[in-house]
């Protein structure tokens, strides 16, 4: 049976995920690079999966992906990219290649934000809706810029979330 503080922590986790899904609608000039904003959802999944198992990351990625598919157009699906982000974060973190937690988080966030944008670009190409030249030029700009701002602002989400999850003990 779940205890009350435990339930509160889980509820907080769900709400923070939802807040990240909403955050993509906000345009905060200070948090963007050339008009490209932080991938809040990717960042949330990375933070969530950082100290969890790969299947927990997978489930979190799938759920947030489904929510995003509802908030925006359902195709191309965000579920695929975010599920990959969840699984890969847990897997990469297993190796503990870097001692510094924040540095590892930033690097993983950069790599996986680029990967996530690439899954979307590949789907757009498969669907054939956007002209290929325009698509890949846009992908280059968006993936690098969002990877950079996402990794730079990673601690902003990581610290509060980690302290929140420490409450579970």
């Amino acid at each position, binding site marked *: 049976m779940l205890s009350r503080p435990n339930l509160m922590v889980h509820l907080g986790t*769900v709400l923070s995920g939802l807040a990240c899904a909403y955050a993509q*609608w906000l345009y905060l000039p200070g948090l963007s690079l050339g008009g490209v*904003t932080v991938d809040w959802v990717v960042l949330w999944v990375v933070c969530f999966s950082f100290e969890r198992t790969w299947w927990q990351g997978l489930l979190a990625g*799938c759920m947030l992906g489904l929510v995003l598919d509802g908030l*925006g*157009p*359902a195709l191309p699906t965000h579920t695929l990219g975010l599920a990959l982000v969840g699984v890969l974060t847990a897997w990469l973190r297993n190796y503990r290649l870097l001692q510094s937690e924040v540095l590892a988080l930033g690097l993983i966030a950069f790599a996986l934000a680029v990967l996530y*944008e690439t899954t979307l670009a590949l789907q*757009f190409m498969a669907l054939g*809706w956007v002209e290929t030249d325009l698509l890949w030029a846009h992908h280059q700009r968006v993936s690098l810029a969002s990877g950079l701002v996402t990794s730079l602002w990673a601690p902003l989400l990581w610290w509060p979330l980690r302290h929140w999850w420490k409450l579970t003990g």
Partner: protein
Amino acid sequence: MRAGLLRWWGRYQWQVVGTLVLLLAALYIRQTQAQVLTDVWYWLNWPLVGLEVVPPPNLSTYRTLELEQRLTSLEQENERLRTMLAVPVTPQSKPVAAQVIGRNGDHWWRTLVLNRGTTDGVALGNPVTAPGGLIGEVVAVSDRTARVLLVSDPLSKVGVQVNRTGAMGVVTGTYRSEGILEFFDSQSQVKLGDTVVTSGLSSRFPGNLPVGKISRLPDKRTEVLQATVQFTAPLDGLQWAFIHTGVVSRPLPDALTP
């Protein structure tokens, strides 16, 4: 085996049930196009937007007031002439003013979320304008919000004509404040700065809404049929938009149907 399973269930039942509930909720959100979540977002925004129907800021200066009066009289004259010639008059209703409560869902779409929905009479396919001209069309609605696909999105295609020469074509977005205009036939008379308006022949938008200005001419050697159009409405910093609810909705392109 059975005892092991029971022990596992005893230990993890709440995690399993919780995960299943969350997964079902996520699926429900996806299938309903997050109508509940967008309505929640509407209420989260009310301190900024206000619950009352706030009129948009008055953008008129004396010069625009004068032009508006001239436009009204010309519109009336046009309507009279059309009735004399028995040409059908497109009904014009007063557009609904809406505030922008969200922009650009992810990096791959150019969209806006507006704080008007089905309760205000907004329907799928309604054209949306802003001071400056056409900015897009409604592609999803909930009770209190509407999602608009901007003309700068590569999936947006608007049938247009060049005002001066009458040349017809289609404007496609490029993620930027410029669009690509593809003419239906070779154009040699088009000049820089020519105004581009929605084509009256298009069934998707009412005719003669300003879209933009020609900012680059067709390259005579390679792309004979392509010109670049600078959108006149400022798509990036929009605060207010007008939804034309009176215009009959129509089926959306395949890519956008849920």
